[in-house]
């Protein structure tokens, strides 16, 4: 063994370390790959050795190689080995390597759970730190679930170094395990006020990150952040907080008003540009003093510093979204930025342009952009320009386009761009315009035919550019609207050129399909003539050219081509027999297609009684391949469209063709639609049909000129009309009428364009969340944090008998699971489950719930005479009402297992108005401080009027005192920090100091508040808080050996109780005790179980529960006999009520 170690260390002397490796790689520039592969072989040898130092060295080198792009996942296990080394040096290397190359599907991560847990609880803070840092990079949902509790504990670690890391990593944990957010949130909130600035900053960081995605849940933190903002001096923290406010202000307008002052102060006082910028940004979000902000931003944009210019434009674009007007006045500046040498700045300026266009200046702006397109180097910027042009033009349903011929010509011009990636974008625009603007079809078809004719210009270098996508659109448009073609024969020939076979498959497919449509149209026109040879020639052309496509490697093309070929052959046969086929062939493609909104399918409501998740057939057996099933379903779902059928064509063929056609339409973003409104005659303002000239004057310019002329003419006409009118009215007067700059409304579109809207299904479900990505991990974190922890999140809470009965089986399952574990089979999963239970218990200590219906609501002295009358009238009603309530309360009592106090006999005569604030409270022991109890009170306003100025006061007893802020007297009430609109409930927490916990207690309290109806009246509500002994107990898990020791120690005093006539299964009984009295099961053998709990002051309470028949005997031991007696009484009461 010793020899082995010596040998190992001798080997080590010759090992390369990281520096040697790097040097070696630099010295082998020629054959780097070869050198590295020998190094990897060496590393593999090193990893096989037992010496951990050698392994660590090897892993360190691997980390470097990983950076160079080598896959090192094969060494994952060795990395775990190095991570688990006890030496910090090696551990650090291991975690670094893991953080660089582990990810969710790395299987060895499963092995690390315990190691990480060990490191997290290491006495050395740097071991913990290294583990946290590593974990932050590779945390998985499993790790997050298993370690959430450990990390939460670390958030209260004594060392700030650990605290801040633990706080920060919680964000990652939340993302992977959203259930942890609510339990962890209170502590996270606490950390906002941590004494260490680093921890504070980390907490701000995490909350800002959370709030950014779901701001509305964090509105309640605004006051806290406000305080931080006015007190903090750390610019990082300030920036984060200000950014957070930027997200919150749109939701809460009042916040914005409050922020103005501190933000102004900051803007004037700070020297940090970053802070100033964020302040301005937030002010923008709050939508206040825009003019000021815009001024400030203008200064930024005019700055010589490019960074500031960029940011100025960025902020400007935020204003644009809400207040386009205020940005539009800076058009000059923005157009100037378009000429900036910096691409980032140009891009930002482009973004802004989007909001500045109007009907008037659209052409001018686009012209300018087209110039840029020509000048632009670098395809990225050019592509960006292209998309922007299209965006600008197509925005809000082509709102600003007055002349669609111009637009089509712009699109055609754009096709001359080389190497653009956005061919499909142009194509979809062409399709969209041609389909939806009916008036433009003639023009569009002409243009597209020219495009098809000149396809060679586009496809010259087509393999590497996406522009040939426009041919897809061109072919489709020519085919679909072939009746508008001037020279269909020429187009047909263009579509069947051999060169087409070099186009991408999906485009060829469209070519083939649309060639068939064209063919149909041509046949129709030719059959009208008496000359039948022309028609036969056309068929012959098809038959000659189509075989080229039949040979295509692309299945889609091949299939369509061969079908159409057969069809044409058949037609030819008929033609030779002099049968008129044109009509029938045309019927193949008859019918209008409607544009359907892309979301339409999603919006179809699911009919009642249809369960989409139910199996239609028996679920397939495992062996069946999974993707076969859906196919089968779809085949059955083949749509039954009613279109004229023709017997001569094979039915199947037709179906297939329809399918193909559907397929093709699916590829098109829009389908044609006939809308009844479009039936009206459209005045087409086409002066002359221009032929596309690939060289010479860009033709869109001609349209600009035409449009100018048109507008001028229109203006003139209008003037004339006006003059006429005036003449009619005041003969001869009003000569002076300058046609100043025309205003928006003056410009009427050239075509009375009827833009067809996309179809949506009837009774579509309106929903706004269409755009939300269902996979967004942040969606899961959209959790209401103000709600008190719900039943499912903490221990199940009893409320109604029915609910409880329903709940208990599940609970039993859990307890059984925990108790009936065979000692050998403590698999990690089960352990985890247990752990989870434990977590929950610790996190949330629900003592008891008392539904306390308003018992006494007496009116404050200041009663107004006027109201007295009303009051009396209402009394009758009131009595009834009250009675009802009372019975409600009675129902409640029986459930509350002894914790319910008897209500004082109610003075029914009380002048009780319809104010029913309901007080529900929950007492929680505070683990950290043995003498503190937190009472969470939920106030619910059940009346129809607004409640405000609520004050909560409790009459202190010797033993228990309400904690009041310093400086207030012992009888002052605490202001409840919120107001209650009708029907709203909110929770407030009050801390009580309790000296002795051995006795149950009742505290009397009052809640005073002002009711605002027409005028304000003071009201008072009395209530009682019942502190049971059980509420001082905290579920604490205990292991059987520790339990045995505790019993052996002899410090505990015993007592016992017998319950008769308990008619429930034993595990139900145990669950009940666990549940209502906060015990945990230590061990259970048959009908006997030992249980344990601990009070907040550290008293141990042990129970031995035995059952025989209907009798249950409980032997209990505790170091405080009074407490024990009371707890047993409470348990007894719980069961006496069953």
């Amino acid at each position, binding site marked *: 063994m010793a020899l082995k170690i010596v040998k190992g260390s001798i080997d080590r002397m010759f090992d390369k370390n990281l520096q040697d490796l*790097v040097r070696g790689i630099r010295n082998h520039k020629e054959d780097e790959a070869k050198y590295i592969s020998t190094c990897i072989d060496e590393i593999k040898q090193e990893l096989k050795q037992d010496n951990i130092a050698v392994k660590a060295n090897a892993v360190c080198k691997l980390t470097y190689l990983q950076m160079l792009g080598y896959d090192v996942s094969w060494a994952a296990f060795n990395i775990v080995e190095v991570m688990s080394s006890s030496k910090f040096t090696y551990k650090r290397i291991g975690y670094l390597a893991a953080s660089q190359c582990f990810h969710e599907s790395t299987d060895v991560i499963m092995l690390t759970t315990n190691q990480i847990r060990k490191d997290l609880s290491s006495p050395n803070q740097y071991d913990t730190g290294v583990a946290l840092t590593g974990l932050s990079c590779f945390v998985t949902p499993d790790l997050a679930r298993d370690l959430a509790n450990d990390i939460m504990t670390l958030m209260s670690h004594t060392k700030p170094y650990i605290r801040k890391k633990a706080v920060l990593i919680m964000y990652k944990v939340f993302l992977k395990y959203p259930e942890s957010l609510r339990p962890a949130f209170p502590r996270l909130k606490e950390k906002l006020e941590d004494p260490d600035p680093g921890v504070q900053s980390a907490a701000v960081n995490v909350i800002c990150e959370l709030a950014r995605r779901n701001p509305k849940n964090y509105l309640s933190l605004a006051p806290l952040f406000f305080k931080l903002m006015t007190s903090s001096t750390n610019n990082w923290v300030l920036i984060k907080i200000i950014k957070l406010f930027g997200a919150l202000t749109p939701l809460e307008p009042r916040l914005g008003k409050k922020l103005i002052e501190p933000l102004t102060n900051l803007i004037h006082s700070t020297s*940090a540009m970053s802070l100033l910028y964020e302040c301005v940004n937030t002010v923008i979000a709050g939508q206040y003093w825009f003019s000021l902000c815009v001024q400030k931003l203008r200064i930024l944009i005019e700055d010589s510093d490019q960074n500031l210019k960029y940011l100025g434009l960025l902020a400007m674009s935020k204003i644009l979204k809400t207040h386009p007007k205020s940005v539009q006045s800076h058009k000059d500046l923005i157009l100037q930025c378009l000429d900036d040498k910096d691409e980032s700045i140009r891009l930002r300026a482009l973004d802004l342009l989007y909001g500045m266009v109007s009907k008037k200046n659209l052409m001018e702006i686009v012209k300018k952009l087209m110039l840029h397109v020509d000048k632009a180097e670098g395809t990225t910027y050019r592509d960006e320009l292209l998309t922007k042009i299209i965006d600008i033009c197509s925005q809000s349903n082509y709102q600003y386009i007055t002349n669609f011929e111009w637009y089509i010509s712009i699109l055609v011009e754009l096709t001359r761009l080389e190497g653009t990636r956005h061919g499909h974008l142009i194509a979809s625009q062409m399709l969209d315009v041609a389909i939806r603007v009916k008036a433009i079809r003639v023009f569009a078809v002409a243009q597209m035919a020219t495009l098809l004719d000149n396809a060679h210009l586009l496809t010259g270098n087509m393999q590497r550019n996406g522009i040939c996508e426009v041919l897809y659109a061109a072919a489709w448009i020519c085919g679909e609207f072939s009746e508008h073609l001037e020279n269909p024969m020429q187009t047909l020939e263009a579509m069947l050129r051999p060169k087409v076979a070099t186009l991408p498959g999906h485009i060829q497919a469209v070519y083939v399909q649309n060639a068939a449509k064209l063919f149909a149209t041509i046949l129709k026109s030719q059959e009208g003539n008496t000359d039948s040879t022309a028609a036969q020639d056309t068929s012959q052309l098809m038959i000659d050219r189509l075989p080229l496509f039949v040979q295509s490697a692309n299945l889609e093309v091949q299939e369509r081509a061969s079908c159409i070929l057969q069809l044409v052959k058949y037609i030819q046969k008929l033609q030779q027999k002099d049968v008129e086929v044109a009509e029938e062939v045309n019927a193949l493609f008859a019918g209008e297609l409607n544009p359907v909104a892309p979301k339409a399918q999603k919006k179809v409501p699911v009919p009642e009684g249809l369960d989409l998740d139910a199996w239609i057939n028996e679920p397939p057996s495992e062996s069946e391949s999974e993707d076969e099933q859906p196919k089968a379903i779809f085949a059955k779902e083949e749509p039954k469209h009613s279109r004229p059928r023709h017997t001569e064509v094979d039915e199947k063929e037709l179906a297939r063709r329809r399918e193909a056609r559907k397929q093709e339409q699916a590829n098109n973003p829009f389908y044609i639609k006939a809308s009844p409104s479009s039936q009206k005659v459209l005045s087409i303002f086409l002066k002359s049909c221009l032929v596309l000239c690939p060289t010479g004057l860009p033709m869109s310019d001609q349209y600009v000129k035409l449009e100018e002329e048109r507008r001028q003419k229109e203006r003139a006409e209008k003037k004339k009309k006006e003059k006429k009118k005036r003449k009619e009215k005041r003969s001869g007067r009003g000569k002076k009428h300058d046609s100043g700059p025309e205003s928006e409304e003056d410009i009427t579109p050239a075509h009375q364009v009827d833009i067809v809207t996309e179809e949506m299904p009837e009774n579509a479900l309106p929903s706004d969340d269409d755009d939300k990505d269902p996979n967004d991990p942040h969606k899961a974190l959209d959790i209401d944090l103000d709600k008190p922890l719900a039943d499912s999140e903490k221990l199940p809470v009893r409320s109604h008998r029915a609910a409880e009965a329903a709940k208990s089986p599940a609970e039993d399952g859990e307890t059984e699971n925990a108790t009936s574990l065979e000692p050998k089979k403590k698999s990690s999963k089960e352990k985890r489950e247990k752990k989870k239970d434990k977590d929950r218990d610790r996190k949330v200590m629900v003592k008891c719930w008392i539904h306390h219906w308003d018992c006494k609501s007496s009116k404050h002295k200041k009663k107004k005479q006027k109201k007295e009358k009303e009051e009396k009238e209402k009394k009758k009603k009131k009595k009834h009402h009250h009675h009802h309530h009372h019975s409600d309360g009675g129902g409640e009592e029986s459930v509350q297992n002894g914790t319910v106090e008897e209500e004082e006999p109610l003075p029914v005569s009380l002048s009780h108005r319809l104010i029913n604030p309901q007080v529900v409270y929950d007492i929680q022991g505070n683990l950290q401080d043995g003498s503190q109890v937190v009472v969470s009170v939920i106030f619910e306003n059940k009346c129809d009027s607004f409640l405000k100025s609520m004050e909560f006061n409790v009459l202190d007893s010797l033993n228990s005192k309400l904690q009041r802020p310093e400086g207030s007297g012992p009888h002052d009430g605490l202001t409840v920090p919120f107001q209650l609109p009708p029907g709203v409930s909110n929770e407030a927490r009050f801390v009580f100091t309790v000296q002795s916990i051995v006795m149950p207690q009742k505290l009397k309290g009052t809640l005073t508040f002002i009711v605002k109806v027409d005028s304000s009246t003071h009201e008072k509500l009395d209530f009682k808080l019942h502190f049971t002994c059980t509420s001082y107990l905290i579920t604490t898990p205990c292991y059987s050996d520790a339990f045995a020791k505790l019993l052996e120690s002899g410090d505990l005093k015993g007592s016992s109780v017998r319950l008769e006539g308990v008619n429930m299964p034993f595990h139900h009984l145990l669950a009940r005790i666990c549940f209502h009295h906060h015990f945990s099961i230590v061990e259970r053998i048959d009908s006997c179980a030992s249980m344990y709990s601990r009070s907040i002051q550290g008293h141990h309470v042990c129970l031995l529960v035995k059952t025989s028949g209907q009798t249950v005997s409980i032997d209990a031991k505790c170091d405080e006999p009074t407490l024990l007696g009371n707890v047993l009484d409470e348990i007894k009461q719980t069961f006496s009520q069953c």
Partner: protein
Amino acid sequence: MIKAILIFNNHGKPRLIRFYQYFAEDMQQQIIRETFHLVSKRDDNVCNFLEGGSLIGGSDYKLIYRHYATLYFVFCVDSSESELGILDLIQVCCYFFKMLCRKKQMVFVETLDKCFENVCELDLIFHMDRVHYILQEVVMGGMVLETNMNEIVAQVEVQNRMEKSEGGLSAAPARAVSAVKNMNLPEIPRNINIGDINIKVPSLSPF
């Protein structure tokens, strides 16, 4: 959130990569190439922000970078980070790496004195692990952990001392171990005050 931190030289050779979201190795290399391509064609006197890295992030993300002599420091961040703040953070990181090498320069690389600009890169090359450890004290899991320089230095120092007391990774490069440790504290500004650092980077003479 910071999505990635990339440091590469003028030829696009990675010197340090740190992704806070998982990408496979070949994807990582592709991102580096793309980023290098985007960044390297920009002049030094244009702004330090860049959009359009299509591989990493999306519209919400932007690249914030600085170019020092032979190295590009690129941070890929989303909109929750302050642009100018990140620029300052990059400067802070550079400061550290500079400190790291200036000390070493005195210890054992005196010859590199002449090409001081290059030291920074060389240092990164040979001590990638160390640079990572420093970075880990500044940014954790994509979020800024600490901005107080003294605090960062102190933590790095303690950890290096621990490593030294354990004998280091191997005996040979022990001389390098003390590099960070020997950093001269008084030379470091007490706290990163964003306002103190001149953000007009292009006009700032490097080092």
